[in-house]
């Protein structure tokens, strides 16, 4: 049985009450929530890529990637896409929410040891990637050169700006490459889609793992570019999204073939995805 941190230690379906201690407005429609238990502790200790079930009592519950954690908090970033996420965006700091988890598998942090890492994020897809980026920096000696390639629709849609422009570029042997589909009068960085910029940057497919998350269309074309550049599908790692309710492989709906995304995922290599039915 897997360990989990919930209100009831023997019941993974009952959340613990936590409080939102900090809200960061990332973009007009993305917010990051820093959450801790009512007695000031970290709700649980996730591995990079793992999921948490976050609930607003009386409104609903949904699964989100846990994008970061600290000594006494975890963070998740939520984009407005419907009724529940709209309600999340109306929260104020101090509000209590339900949290259960962590769920699912995680990025292969051990098999990636000793390798160069190329993180690629598109839009809100940087959220799951961020957890591994932070982990890699926390275990800096375990990994080689780190490149972070991030693209969003416009400068206003860039998430984790503090990380992208202040924190991460200061890390040793690290390069951050940011691109937007359409610039504006103040934007001085690269303009163009992720796949094109990726090819321009000409990363070598030698001793390098790629961690890739973003909207399906971006994944599709970025993967084509990566394959063209000589990367293998085994070396390209991504996360999947499906509708989830229980988070523990019981309620049925997030299956792709015999795999449950909440339990066996969300992290898969592109080679593993090829083995699954095409139903995503």
């Amino acid at each position: 049985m897997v360990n989990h941190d919930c209100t009831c230690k023997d019941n993974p379906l009952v959340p613990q009450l936590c409080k939102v201690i900090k809200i960061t407005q990332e973009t007009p429609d993305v917010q990051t929530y820093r959450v801790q238990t009512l007695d000031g502790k970290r709700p649980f200790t996730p591995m990079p890529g793992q999921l948490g079930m976050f609930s607003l009592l009386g409104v609903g519950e949904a699964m989100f990637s846990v994008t970061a954690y600290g000594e006494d908090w975890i963070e998740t970033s939520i984009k407005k896409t419907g009724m529940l996420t709209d309600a999340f965006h109306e929260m104020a700091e101090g509000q209590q929410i339900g949290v259960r988890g962590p769920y699912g598998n995680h990025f292969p942090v051990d098999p990636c040891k000793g390798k160069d890492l190329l993180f690629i994020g598109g839009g809100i897809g940087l959220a799951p990637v961020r957890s591994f980026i932070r982990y890699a920096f926390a275990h800096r000696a375990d990994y080689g050169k780190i490149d972070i390639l991030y693209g969003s629709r416009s400068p206003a849609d860039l998430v984790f700006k503090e990380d992208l422009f202040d924190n991460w570029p200061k890390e040793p042997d690290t390069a951050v490459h940011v691109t937007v589909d359409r610039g504006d009068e103040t934007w001085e960085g690269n303009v163009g889609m992720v796949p094109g910029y990726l090819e321009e940057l000409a990363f070598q497919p030698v001793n390098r793992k790629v961690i890739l998350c973003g909207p399906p269309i971006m994944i599709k074309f970025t993967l084509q570019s990566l394959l063209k550049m000589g990367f293998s599908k085994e070396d390209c790692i991504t996360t999947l999204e499906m509708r989830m309710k229980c988070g523990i492989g019981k309620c049925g709906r997030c299956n792709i073939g015999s795999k449950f995304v909440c339990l066996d995922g969300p992290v898969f290599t592109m080679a593993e995805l090829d083995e699954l039915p095409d139903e995503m």
Partner: protein
Amino acid sequence: MQLKRENLIPALRLLAAQGEILVPTAVDEKVSKFAPWDGSSAPDLALVNTTLPPKDTLFPHQEGMYRYKTAGEPSLEEIVEAPARILFGVRPCDARSIDCMDKVFLGDKYEDAFYARRRANVTVIAHTCAQTGPTCFCDSMGLSPAEAPSADLLLSDTETGWLVTAQTEKGEAVAALWKDLTAEGGEAAPAPACTLKTNMSDALAGTLVSRFEDPIWDEVCHACLGCGTCTYLCPTCYCFDINHEDHGGEGTQFRCWDSCMFSDYTRMAGGHNPRPSKKERLRNRYLHKLAYFKERYGQILCVGCGRCVGHCPSHLDITAFIDKAAERFGEGK
């Protein structure tokens, strides 16, 4: 040991002290289900099969998970409910279905606490089939109408009553309780054969997954109306939804049966649906039953009870599908 027919009511009365007894019951002329024993009449053990399976005893159609308060100081309180119950007269197919649900809810990395608590307090007394119904096909799915290996206790028909075979500790306890009501002797009647047959095989299970894009899925889905009858009457369908009932400031989080045949089941918040039409949904249901579950848990998720065949509004028939696929893909037994 044999329990004579005239001793059934006394036996049930003894059992009633251990918990609520649920027996096959005709609710009205159209519907039957496992309902509390009335305490005096002999259960109708000839019902093949009850319209509703006994699964709701372990996995209620709707089940409270926790109560919450949002007004004032927010709070959560887990709902714990696990009444002592005895399922009496469960057919071999339904007994196997409980085995399937155990695999899901009691294992595979997490234990489901709601199910586990109920399960621990339920005793399953199975009853062999003296006769089968027109849509029964359990013997094509690796079961026998005369056996229910995962039941706590098995009652096998004899000419004058039932042979009593305890199969677990819980079963031993029941047998001990009945010790003064049972006697040596009696011979189990031969098992009847199902009249409906289908050509399911391990090889076909594997082939079906590899034929994910085959036109056969288009062909079989047409007549489907996309209702939830097959899934809700199925003894092994265990999918659920989690939802809440809010009364302003307080409420209850509950789970309830859900159906993979409904569009909302997989539709994501942004509107994308990986299984957008009845073709994808029916394909997923059939593959889950016949292949995916076996890949994951080692057995088929269809026990051949025939409820879906008997109650489908469009008369879709999973046995006809299996045989069509076996013939087309050359994977007969």
